[in-house]
């Protein structure tokens, strides 16, 4: 690691987005986004295709004109400034290196624009390459580098100008799985060491969870939930977030209230909601979301012991490794469950789901996620 870069951590800038509306032609893409990025934070914008996450990043960087709203960087509204005046460095999915330039020229270009001398550029680029684990690569053509090396050079090019804000537009999507894992840790480590404010767009849930200290889940141009990875994963705010974060099993349920407590009924089974975070849920028809690895298969007449044990029938079985994956027909739905024991097709089973692991939402809202 290069001493100069390591010993002088820069402080990232704060970004404050207020009432951001963006449209392509007549189509509204962002519907009034409000979001704060604290200095030195690593935020991942996560969502399915077309949710507006890339548009949000591109409007931060200035490549998409803002219809209304403000983007405050260090208290100054940059929404009307061109990209070159915003002081944010971006890393692109396609690396976007200039094929007619060497590694030195690519990384040094931002410094050249800032009037640095050739000697200064050479020194800083050498330090940056050392920092990125590519020492001595200055005179290489970027077309002669591997994907991982290219993305490191692209990262170096962005970091060379000492930005307060680093924007990452799916920078790992074009890399193979092994390099992607390494780069996740490298980018996160660099961001923390330099204290940059990083905004990372991805559709890869695991990538977002492992890299970011805060997730922003987007849905149809709006923010569905903001929180730490644990909050978003364990306490999804909406049916969409629950579904997007991997709780893909959907069980129609009914909540009944009696006195102080509440109970849950599904497919002939029932359980008390006392110990569940959803205990305050209003009575009525609802939908419960849960992950494949939450439920277990049990005997159809096994004691509930506080869990919801829904009777079901095994419809299909696969072995992806380690555990068996079953498709169980229960409460009129097909539920996917992982279980360590082997069961035969057609067996009647009890689908055991711990009530506190269910994410329960009103039936009307669940229609959005289905």
């Amino acid at each position, binding site marked *: 690691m290069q001493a100069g870069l390591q010993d002088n951590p820069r402080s990232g800038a704060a970004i404050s987005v207020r009432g951001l509306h963006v449209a392509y032609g007549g189509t509204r893409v962002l519907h009034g986004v409000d979001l704060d990025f604290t200095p030195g934070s690593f935020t991942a914008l996560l969502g399915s295709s077309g949710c507006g996450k890339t548009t949000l990043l591109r409007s931060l960087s200035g490549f998409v004109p803002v219809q209304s709203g403000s983007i405050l960087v260090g208290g100054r509204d940059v929404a009307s400034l061109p990209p*070159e005046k915003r002081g944010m460095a971006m890393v692109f999915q396609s690396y*976007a*290196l*200039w094929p007619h330039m060497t590694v030195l020229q690519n990384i040094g270009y931002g410094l050249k624009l*800032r009037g640095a001398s050739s000697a200064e550029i050479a020194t800083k680029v050498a330090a940056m390459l050392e920092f990125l684990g590519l020492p001595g690569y200055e005179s290489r053509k970027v077309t002669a580098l591997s994907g991982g090396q290219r993305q490191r050079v692209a990262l170096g090019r962005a970091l060379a100008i000492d930005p307060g804000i680093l924007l990452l537009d799916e920078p790992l999507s074009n890399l193979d799985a092994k390099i992607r894992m390494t780069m996740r840790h490298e980018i996160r480590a660099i961001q923390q060491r330099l204290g940059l404010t990083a905004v990372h767009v991805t559709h890869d849930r695991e990538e977002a969870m492992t890299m970011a200290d805060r997730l922003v889940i987007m849905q149809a141009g709006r923010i569905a939930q903001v929180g730490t990875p644990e909050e978003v994963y364990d306490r999804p705010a909406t049916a969409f977030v629950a579904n997007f974060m991997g709780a893909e099993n959907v069980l129609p349920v009914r909540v009944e209230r009696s006195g102080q407590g509440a109970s849950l009924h599904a497919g002939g089974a029932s359980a008390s909601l006392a110990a569940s975070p959803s205990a305050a849920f209003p009575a009525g028809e609802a939908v419960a979301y849960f992950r494949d690895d939450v439920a277990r298969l049990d005997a159809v007449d096994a004691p509930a012991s506080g869990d919801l044990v829904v009777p079901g029938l095994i419809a299909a079985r696969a072995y992806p490794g380690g555990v068996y994956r079953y498709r169980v027909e229960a409460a009129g739905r097909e539920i996917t469950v992982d279980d360590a024991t082997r069961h035969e097709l057609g067996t009647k089973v009890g689908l055991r789901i711990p009530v506190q692991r269910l994410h329960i939402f009103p039936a009307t809202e669940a229609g959005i996620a289905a």
Partner: protein
Amino acid sequence: MLSQRQLALVLIAPGLFLVAALFLYPLVFSLISAFTRPDGSFTLEWFAKAYELYSGDIVFTIVIVLASCVLTAVAAIVIAGTLTLGENPWIVGTLKALYRWPLFIPFIVAAQCMRTFLAKNGLMNNTFVSLGLMEPLSAISFLDWRGIIATFVWKQTPFVALLLAGALASIDRATLEAGRNLGASRARVMLELALPQVMPTLLVALVLSFVTMLSVLSVPMMVAGSQPTMLTVDMAFRINAYGDYATANALGVITYLISAGAAIIYLKRGMNQEATS
């Protein structure tokens, strides 16, 4: 039965015959005639005569065509750059709709338009006078070398801009955005990041324009006076006034060598690039 190979030859025979009869035969014939006396003996006297009478025009032709190429390149880069990096949809839309029009206008019509536009009392000067920008007495004619260059640039810019804009549209847009993101203005992005990536296309378009401009007869004949003038006019004059095919053919060979020079420069650059990449 014909073999596949014979069948292929039969199929391309009509085309081959046309090329041979209408292109190769006249080319070889004029090449031979440039180097032979009427009695068939070898001579360089037609080249000596061409050099003696028209050396000034040879230089004039090269200067005119090179200057036109440079100005065409500049205009095409501005247009293609605006089309690629322009942010005002109104300007980009208007430019896109208008810039190709000269492509569909023949050189002779373009020359005629320029005659009425650039003359001493032509449209351009009249406009300046009526706007109060110029005194009527100070109006001068541009129907000389400047008129030829203006016509060539006006006529060839759309062609070069068309190829250039196509090439610019095919490069990774993120490479241009990366430049702006790091702080480069649109002009710098165009000149330092976009243009080097499409340089081969620009060179092809300019070499083709160079050869086209070299072979145009109507523009120098109609726009400019008689002296100095371009080689095409001299060739036409040798044939029409004197029936002097030999000298005209010698001038033709010289024209061919000039255009071959442009092609060689282009090919050499292409080979150098391949060697370094």
